[in-house]
């Protein structure tokens, strides 16, 4: 196989990373989620001042922080235990001096100290319909700026086409559409059209096809301004580029990626927080930071009547905390190693959903050379291991920038990079980037790599759900065991997105609220 992206891989990626609409539709079909468009932030009943309910939250990822914020401001006594040295979970922005706590290969980020020189190692973009997250950004004062995701000026590179020479994304899209439209126009015959298509509809359809591929009056594709002009002189007649060989383009694995930027979660309008995605974490921490204990590693979780006991270690010291409710956003694959008294029909699920192995590289470039190539933000795609190069949407026209130098989706590519030492990873990313931008190596000043399945206290990226797993395990893992709730993007139909994490918290705290109102109405403030 010459391409790193199989059709299956792409579908997985769409489910796990991109628009999960397809997965969501499948879930709707299975009756797993109600067909209601939007779940609002639950209206938690405030508790009276006398004796609040005690809630322990395991993990200071986005779901844990959401639950802590919502419950604490309604009178619940909240404690968050976080095993690592920082809050945020996979929401992690790397800046000068930051530690990348990878098991076996710890690194320190060596970017220059500069507000624009940072790397979003986890989530990096927010689509306009992620209303819960955007609502928190507004409420917590997280300033947002447009994020450029899809860029037709960026490159597409595949050794399987044009001898590995990169072409502009707009050339690939335009010329293949022209080719397909011409084929379709040639083969469409009015007599093939069955009712309810009328003769007039047929003409209209041909117009659609002509417009789709920008065909000429005789339904031939002879190039299009959409693919770009040969020169940009502006004072002499403009000359179209010659259409590229469609046979070569059809050979590329890029056919599985060309619609990436059209997915619901990937298309404009996308946003990013000014200064890094972890401004979201900082916003939550400004409200609940005093409730978070870091370096607090959970040792055991014991569900009992009316509550949950959690034993945790800070250094050598073992401590026990008795809570009325426990919300856990520890990744399931790590929870499997925590001592517990969960029923097997529940905890067996922890080992069933494979952990994601996504991998990213960030490179500090001494010059924003891509802007000289008319690229401002967006993604170049390559069928090499690195798969993507992202250009920063922020800091435009400044001297330096941090480029995403690799972002792999497949387990194989993630493993390949993870087996290398950090310097070897950077070297490979540079060598592969060279095929897209000749001279690439000469701009690289330093780099960081994030192998999510090797990051301490996470050891995995988004849970890799698949249809049989949703069907077998999702409802079970979403439902509480006694007063213990599993949360996190791992318990959502949107794994890999903060919006999924937030909604998993909503789901759990709404249930707690319902139970508290019924079981202990005397605690609810009148």
């Amino acid at each position: 196989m010459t391409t790193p992206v199989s059709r299956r891989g792409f579908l997985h990626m769409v489910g796990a990373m991109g628009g999960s609409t397809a997965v969501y539709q499948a879930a709707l079909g299975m009756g797993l989620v109600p067909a209601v468009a939007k779940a609002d932030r639950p209206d938690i009943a405030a508790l009276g001042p006398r004796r609040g309910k005690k809630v322990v939250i395991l993990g200071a990822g986005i779901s844990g922080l959401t639950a802590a914020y919502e419950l604490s401001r309604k009178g619940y006594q909240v404690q968050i235990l976080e095993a690592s040295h920082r809050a945020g979970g996979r929401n992690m922005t790397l800046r000068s001096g930051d530690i990348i706590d990878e098991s076996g290969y710890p690194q320190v980020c060596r970017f220059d100290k500069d507000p624009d020189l940072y790397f979003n190692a986890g989530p990096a973009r927010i689509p306009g319909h992620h209303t819960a997250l955007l609502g928190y950004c507004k409420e917590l004062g997280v300033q947002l700026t447009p994020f450029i995701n899809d860029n037709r000026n960026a490159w597409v590179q595949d050794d399987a086409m044009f001898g590995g020479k990169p072409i502009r994304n707009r050339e690939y899209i335009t010329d293949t559409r022209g080719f397909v439209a011409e084929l379709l126009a040639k083969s469409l015959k009015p007599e093939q059209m069955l009712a309810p298509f009328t003769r007039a509809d047929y003409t209209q359809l041909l117009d659609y096809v002509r417009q789709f591929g920008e065909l000429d009056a005789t339904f031939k594709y002879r190039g299009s301004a959409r693919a770009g002009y040969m020169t940009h002189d502006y004072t002499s007649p403009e000359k179209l580029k010659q259409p590229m060989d469609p046979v070569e383009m059809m050979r590329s694995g890029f056919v599985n990626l060309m619609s990436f930027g059209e997915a619901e979660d990937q298309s404009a309008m996308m946003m990013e927080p000014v200064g890094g995605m972890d401004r979201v974490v900082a916003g939550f921490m400004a409200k609940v930071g005093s409730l978070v204990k870091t370096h607090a590693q959970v040792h055991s979780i014991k569900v009992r009547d009316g509550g949950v006991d959690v034993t945790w270690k800070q250094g050598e010291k073992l401590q026990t905390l008795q809570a009325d409710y426990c919300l856990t956003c520890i990744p399931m694959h790590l929870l499997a190693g925590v001592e517990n008294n969960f029923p097997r029909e529940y905890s067996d699920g922890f080992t069933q959903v494979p952990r994601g192995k996504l991998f990213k590289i960030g490179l500090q470039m001494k010059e924003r050379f891509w802007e000289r190539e008319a690229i401002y933000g967006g993604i170049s795609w390559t069928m090499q291991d690195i798969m993507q190069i992202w250009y920063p949407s922020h800091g435009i026209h400044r001297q330096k920038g941090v480029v995403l130098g690799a972002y792999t989706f497949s387990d194989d590519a993630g493993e390949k990079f993870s087996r290398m030492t950090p310097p070897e990873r950077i070297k490979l990313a540079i060598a592969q980037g060279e095929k897209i931008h000749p001279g690439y190596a000469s701009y690289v000043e330093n780099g960081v790599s994030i192998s999510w399945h090797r990051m301490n206290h996470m050891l995995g990226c988004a849970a890799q759900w698949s249809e049989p797993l949703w069907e077998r395990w999702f409802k079970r893992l979403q439902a509480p065991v006694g007063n213990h709730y599993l949360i996190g993007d791992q318990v959502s139909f949107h794994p890999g997105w903060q919006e999924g994490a937030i909604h998993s918290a909503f789901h759990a705290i709404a249930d707690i609220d319902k139970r508290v109102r019924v079981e202990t109405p005397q605690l609810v403030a009148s």
Partner: protein
Amino acid sequence: MNWRSVRAAVALGLALATLSAAAESLDLTYCITCHGADGNGNPAIRAPKIAGMEPWYIKRQLDAFAAGTRGVSPADTAGHEMQPVAVRLKEAGITDRAIAFVGTFDAKAPVATVTGDATRGKTLYVACAACHGAKGEGNASLSAPALAERSDWYLVTQLKNYASGVRGSDPTDAPSAQMRAVAQSLTDNAAIDDVVAYINTLH
């Protein structure tokens, strides 16, 4: 900056990183991040139970990982997650401290996950018993670790690794080479499951 200087810069960066991250990453509680509470194992991430393992055996394995005679094969994905960790333990001179830390763990009997024919396994186990003991209790003088009450799925993985040469191919590691020969005598995956199903009955 040419490639070589990029590499040098990156290597320098890593060296600095190693120094300043030292305080953070030498924290031995990382053992239980992967190997679970009290090192009783986590099958979800293929981290075996290490609680109750003989100190001499842990040392030999940590040395093998650190030397790159174990955990470097591309076919040994889980092994490579351990390999650089062992290198760091060695570089920091705390391998012995780590082994002592494992010695403080409260070992629990692992949950059986392998289904095989224990009766057939008992017959096959004769070949194992010579070194590992009739009750899977191990024999340090023969460099044979205990097999009873280990993670059963891990025993299966290692038998397959030995049989395929992922483990035991290093000529300087005689006990592993010997183990490889024995593993190859288990003719198929069913035989491996059977013998491990029998080991599950040993205490």
